[in-house]
């Protein structure tokens, strides 16, 4: 069941090419307001590129990306959005100053920035680390800080590119708690992962991507009960999807 039916972003026949290689192939899909959408697929599927296209860090070689306003009408302006990357990039300043910097780019005054920085650091449990240099924090703390920095911007959509890819289970748990809190505060979450267990925990909708194409787009419950696409079935089963230059081969037991 789709929780809300207002579209926020749609991709129409989007292609992305780099160095003569087509990495995203005529991809069309629509993201709706409300449910957490998790994009899954093996390495090299194009998950990160898809997020970067949506976030406008990359421009499509072909096709069109359409944004919608809060009422679901087509909009020429891009709504407030933020992104957290697989490897957090921390500026050379304190944890609090990293959040403050992001807010300064949105034109907030000093008092507003201070209040909001304190708020997100408290919400993410980082208050005690606020005055430390962001670059001396552990990887998990840095990723949490990256989420806090993005959350401080109060985005309508938050793109997360494998935010727990290099983290241990306890750090992953902490990050997922923050992701859920951000979602509960009204931010649309669109994230990528190749961790099926995480997708089960976080997804309302699943988009299965393979070699730059969407092979399955369904509700999480439907997808995990049994996807219709054979590659998605194989991926879910834990088989390896191997590309041998001509075709994809499924290598199971």
């Amino acid at each position, binding site marked *: 069941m789709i929780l809300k039916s207002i579209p926020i972003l749609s991709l129409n026949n989007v292609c992305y090419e780099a160095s003569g290689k087509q990495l995203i192939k005529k991809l069309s899909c629509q993201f709706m307001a409300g449910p957490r959408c998790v994009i899954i697929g093996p390495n090299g599927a194009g998950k990160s590129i898809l997020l970067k296209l949506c976030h406008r*860090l990359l421009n499509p070689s072909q096709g069109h990306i359409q944004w919608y306003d809060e009422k679901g009408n087509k909009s020429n302006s891009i709504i407030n959005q933020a992104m957290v*990357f697989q490897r957090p*990039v921390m500026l050379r300043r304190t944890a609090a100053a990293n959040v403050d910097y992001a807010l300064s780019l949105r034109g907030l005054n000093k008092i507003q920035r201070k209040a909001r920085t304190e708020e997100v650091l408290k919400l993410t449990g980082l208050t005690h680390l606020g005055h430390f*240099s962001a670059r*001396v924090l552990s990887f998990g703390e840095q990723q949490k800080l990256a989420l806090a920095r993005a959350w401080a911007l109060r985005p309508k959509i938050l793109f997360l590119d494998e935010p727990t890819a290099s983290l241990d289970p306890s750090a992953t748990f902490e990050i997922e708690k923050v992701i859920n809190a951000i979602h509960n505060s009204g931010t649309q979450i669109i994230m990528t992962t190749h961790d099926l267990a995480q997708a089960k925990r976080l997804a309302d909708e699943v988009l299965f991507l393979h070699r730059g194409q969407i092979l399955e787009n369904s509700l999480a419950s439907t997808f995990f009960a049994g996807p219709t696409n054979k590659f998605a079935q194989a991926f879910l089963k834990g088989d390896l999807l191997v590309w041998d230059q001509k075709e994809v081969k499924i290598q199971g037991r």
Partner: protein
Amino acid sequence: MNVFLDAISLLTTTDSNLLSIVGLSLWVSLIAVFFATLIGIPLGAATSLYEFRGRQFLIVLLNALMGLPPVVVGLIVYLLLSRSGPFGVLGLLFSPTAMIIAQTILIIPIIAALSRQIIDHLWIEYSEQLLSLGATSYRRMKTLIWDGRFSLLTAVLAGFGRAIAEVGAVMIVGGNIDHVTRVMTTSITLEVSRGNLALALGLGIVLITLSLSINAIAYLLKEFAESRQI
């Protein structure tokens, strides 16, 4: 050996002539470094971050000008500031200001080219994050310069090293006038030709000590910043 002892004796007795030469050298070079930094770092950052017509040419030019022959720069500044030159009316020739101008021209390419390389590396790390946060071109440049400040110090030091050790250009535009435009390098040249090797050696020792000290301070500052990740 006697020359060396005489040089040490000159240094320990704080010879006033020697002090005035050292003072002027530092003054001219530091002011030149200040102006070259003001121009060179933004220029280097801009060539790294902005796409504009002639960017590639400017990068090649800055790299090539790092090895700019000082006497040629001295000659050009001389022609510009001489009485018949376009800026002759300012009466700057054979003054410390003329020496500052020549040194500034000499070290701008060094600071700019090295800054560009430093900003290039930092941009690879920061680009996606800054673009994602919506930083404008100006803010990106400002952020990268600030975050790369300790690495950029190396570029500034390279410029200072070139400026303080420079002799050809300052000799032409300064004229090596006693108590007016005589700096350590021009003085060493003169004293050697006069046979006053003790003073020349004394100045040489000061020059090397200054250079080592400034580099050591900058190195320690960079190490401190890196250890604290600031």
